[in-house]
Each structure stands twice: as C-alpha cells, then as structure tokens.
C-alpha cells in the first residue's frame, strides 16, 4: 500500500515537471526564434542605408531593397481579408450559436472545422483557376491576379478560425442572460445585438485577432493569386491592382539567396517586421481582453 502511494507521488512529481517544462518551452522557443531573427536580420540595417530600405523599388538582384511596397501590399491584403472574414465569420458564429436549430448546428459546426483544415495551397489553385478569371471579367480589370483576389481568398481562409473561436465565446454566455432579455420583451435580434454579443465581446475580439493573424501570415495562396508586383499604391485602387506581400517575398526569394549576403539579411529583416506585427496584434488583443475582464469584475463587485 505504502509503496504504491510513494510511486504515485513520484509519478505526479514527474508529470508536474513535464507539464511545467513544456509550458516554459513555448517561451524558450519564441525567445530563440526572436534572437535568431535579430541575429540574421539586423545586419541588414548596417549594410543597407535606411533611405534605401524606405524607398519604393524592390528589385533585389540589382540591389534595390525598398520595403515600403511589400509592407503596403501585406497591409492592403490583410485589411481586405479582415473586412471579409470578420462580418461573415461573426455572422456565421451568431447563426450557429443563437439562431440555427439544433440539427443544423450539428452539421454546420464540423463543416466549418473541416473548412479550417483545408490546405491553403489547394485554395490557391481555386484562386488562380476560378476566382481570378471571374474577378477580371466581372469587374473589367486588366488582370484578376490582384490584392482583391488575395483578400477574398485569405478572408475565406480566416473565416473558419473566426467562426470557431467566436462561436465558443457566444456559447459560453450563460443561458440566463438570454432568458432575462427575452423576458423583458426584447426581440431575438435585440437579445443578440445588445446582450449576447457584448457579453461575449472578449472572446469575439480574440477571434478577430486570431483571424487577422492567420491572414497576415498566410503565404502560399497569396503568392499564387496576388501577382507579386512590388508597387506601392495608396488609396482604393490598391485593392484592384496586383500587389506583393512580405510573406510571398520571403517564400519566393529565400531559396536562392547566398547565405550571409545583403539580400539574405534584408529577407530576415522582413521576417522581423512580420514578427513584430504579429506580436503587436497579439499584445493588442490580450490587452483588450484584459481590460474587458477588469470592467466585468468592476460591474460584478
């Protein structure tokens, strides 16, 4: 008996340590990646003048390393994708969680999850063969390989992420909130818009941020449909023209650069920029969620 108890506590000790180690390893890995990126990317700042990096021509084989068109391209495509994914994603989540009858819900939820597991390169094929010719003919554009095609495709890729996280958040809102609202004479729409969604706000916000993160980091599908022309465009026309994103640039050019060359360091600098952007998105998201918690705690106390 006694023996068994000691062996149990020994196992527990081991498991606790293992869980702890895997928890800390996440921090270690992020730290290692960060230092690696810094080590490979920061030399670019010494080799390439800042005015060159902030110019608008990206043509690395002749030594032009202007990052602005790439940053602009990523922002346009990601913004477009967010505008697609957020309304549709939250709408779908509300429908699944609040409106759909039980049987439909049982079908829709797994379907959305399957969509989320779809390889993006397959969606890229669809983008090249179906979406871009359609956009060219429908909108009368010179070519369908545009930021818009990238936005729509990325939006589609981000929707499942937004839906499943937002749906979980809505699901977690206590039944009594809805009952109370309906008992006070609110319609179903008023209940959703004024009670359920605000109550689930932090989770819905997390869903949006995760969706944006998914969109900005996506590479393959974007590379296939955006045309990859590094031109900095301001204004609405940017959406209807070919563009080149940061991720596509790294993917297309990393394979051929000579190790340790200027071009190599600049590509890592782009990696640092991407890292910082996704860090900023995550920090903003958790700050907003944190503030939300405090407010609800205030209300409760």
């Amino acid at each position, binding site marked *: 008996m006694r023996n068994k108890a000691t062996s149990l506590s020994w196992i527990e000790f081991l498991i606790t340590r293992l869980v702890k180690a895997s928890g800390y390893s996440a921090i270690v890995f992020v730290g290692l990646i960060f230092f690696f990126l810094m080590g490979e990317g920061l030399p670019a700042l010494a080799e390439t003048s800042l005015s060159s990096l902030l110019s608008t*021509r*990206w*043509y*690395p*084989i*002749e030594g032009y390393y202007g990052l602005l*068109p790439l940053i602009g391209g990523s922002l346009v495509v990601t913004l477009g994708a967010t505008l697609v994914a957020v309304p549709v994603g939250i709408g779908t989540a509300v429908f699944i969680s609040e409106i759909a009858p039980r049987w439909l819900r049982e079908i829709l939820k797994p379907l959305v999850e399957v969509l989320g597991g779809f390889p993006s390169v397959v969606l890229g094929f669809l983008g*090249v*063969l179906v979406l*871009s*010719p359609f956009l*060219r003919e429908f909108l009368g554009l*010179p*070519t*369908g*390989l545009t930021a818009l095609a990238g936005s729509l495709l990325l939006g589609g890729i981000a929707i499942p992420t937004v839906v499943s996280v937002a749906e979980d958040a809505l699901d977690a809102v206590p039944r009594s909130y809805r009952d109370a609202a309906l008992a006070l004479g609110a319609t179903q729409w008023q209940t959703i818009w004024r009670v359920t969604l605000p109550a689930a706000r932090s989770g819905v916000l997390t869903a949006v941020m995760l969706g944006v993160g998914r969109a900005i980091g996506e590479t393959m599908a974007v*590379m*296939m449909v955006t*045309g*990859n*022309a*590094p*031109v900095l465009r301001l204004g609405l026309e940017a959406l209807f023209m*070919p563009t*080149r994103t940061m991720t596509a640039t790294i993917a*297309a*050019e990393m*394979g*051929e*650069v*000579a*190790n340790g060359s200027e071009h190599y360091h600049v590509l890592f600098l782009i990696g640092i920029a991407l890292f910082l952007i996704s860090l900023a998105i995550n920090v903003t998201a958790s700050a907003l969620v944190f503030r939300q918690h405090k407010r609800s705690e205030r209300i409760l106390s």
Partner: protein
Amino acid sequence: MRFALRFLPGLLCALALILAGCSDSDGGETSQEAAAYIENKGSDTMVNLALAWAEAYQALNPQVRISVTGGGSGTGIAALINGTVDIANASRQIKAEEMAAGAAPVEFVVARDAIAIIVNPENPVDQLTLQQISDIYSGIYDNWSQVGGEDRPIVRLSRETNSGTHVYFLEEVLRLGQKDNKTFFTPETLLLPSSEGITTEVRQNPNAIGYDGLGYVTPDVKVVAVARDASGPYVMPSAESVNNDQYPIARDLYMYTAGQPSGAIADYIQWLFSAEAQAIVVELGFVPVAVP
C-alpha cells in the same frame, strides 16, 4: 487493434520480400562496385530535361541513382557551392561572385533553349521586335494598340527574380544585350513563381504577355514571331531557327560540377553529349548542342 494484428504478419512478409528483392538486385549487378548516387539540382527550365536524361541513363546503368530537383538556377548553384549537390543545372551562365565562392565550378553547355514570347490566342498581335518587347516590359507601352493590337491594357508576366530565365530576359531582351543599359522591368510586372503560372494566366487573359522556355509552351497559347529590328525577318522559335541563329532570344543551358568531374559523374556528363541523350533534348522541345 485486432484489425492491425491481423495484418501485421502480412506486412512483415511484404517488408521481408522488399528487402530480399533489393539485396538480390544489388548482388546481381556488377558485384563489388557500390551503387553511385548523383544529386542534380537547379533550373526549373531544365528540370524536365534533366529528369528525362536521368531516367534514360538509369535504365542503361542500373547501378547509378540520379536524383533531380528544381528550384531555380541560383538555388542549384548555391547548393553546388554548399556541397549538397554534385551537378547544378543553370539556364544562365554562372556569375563572377558565384565562381569565386570556392567550389571551383566547371561549366558544360548541355543544350540550347529558345525563349518564346506568348500571348492569348484572342490577341491579334502575332509579331514583335526586340525593341517593342523591351518597351512593353519596361513600361513605355501600356496598351496593345501601341504595338498593332486591340485597345486593351497590357498585363506583363515574368518569372520571379530567382529564375535564370528572368535574368536572361532582363539582360538580353529588356537591355538588348547592352552592358551599360540600365532598363528595368516596370514594377507593374507580375512576378509569377512558376512557368505553369505564366501559361495559366496567358491562356485565360487576353491582356497578358509572357515568356517561357520553348519546351514549356502549350498548344493553347499563341507564340509571337520575333525580329531583331523592324527591318529584320520575324522568326518563330524552333530548333532550326535557333541553330542557324535566326531566332534572337536563344540561350545556352548549362550544367556545373564542383571541380573536374570524375567517376560516375564524369561518365554521366560524357553520356549527355551522346546522340541518344541529345535526341531527348529534341523530344522535349529544346535545341541539341552536338549534331546527333
């Protein structure tokens, strides 16, 4: 679990058979000579050609294994310098800084290739001069009506900058082979990651113009005849027009080895210049170097 157990003996048998089969064939060939393994990587233009060569050569010499991968000329040469491949394929000549990087590369011209200018079959333009192509890609011409076509915007398609074809096109077509010419692709040029990407877009977009190795041109796009200058004859790309220097956009295809090749690699390179290997070149739409 029961399901897995039922199949386990069968699996083991199959595994044993495979292993036995392998050792048998090894023992059957030249007994003491170990199987040679050649890594071959580089130009996407040449990947189909290199694969066909490797297959034919392996059929003749079963003790030799050749693995062929693409990735672009620069990728192949970088791998040769890093010592991860035996032979690098390149659709452009090696650069001075790559030559100086330490592997002492030795050059072989193994075939020739023509770059075809392709447009959508709906496009009425069927001939262009080099100067017109240069002006289209540098952004001087923006509408097909400026080169004798319909009133449509021009959508320029190019390979990514890591492609040997891109560099060749920049130097020989955009800059017309002039060393001091600093013409650029207009940034509006769409950079597509593959030859297939260019063919797909040209096939479905009547505004598009693209370029591709002759071996990659499919029947559903239209090839444009090209002239050196406005007075010269407009020539379609073909094996004959490349060999007699009529077609202006043709180049050599290279293989590089680290130092003078020896053993199995030397045998393979020597075989590439045989009538049999050069017949494969013709089959795939490229132009042979040695007259078979």
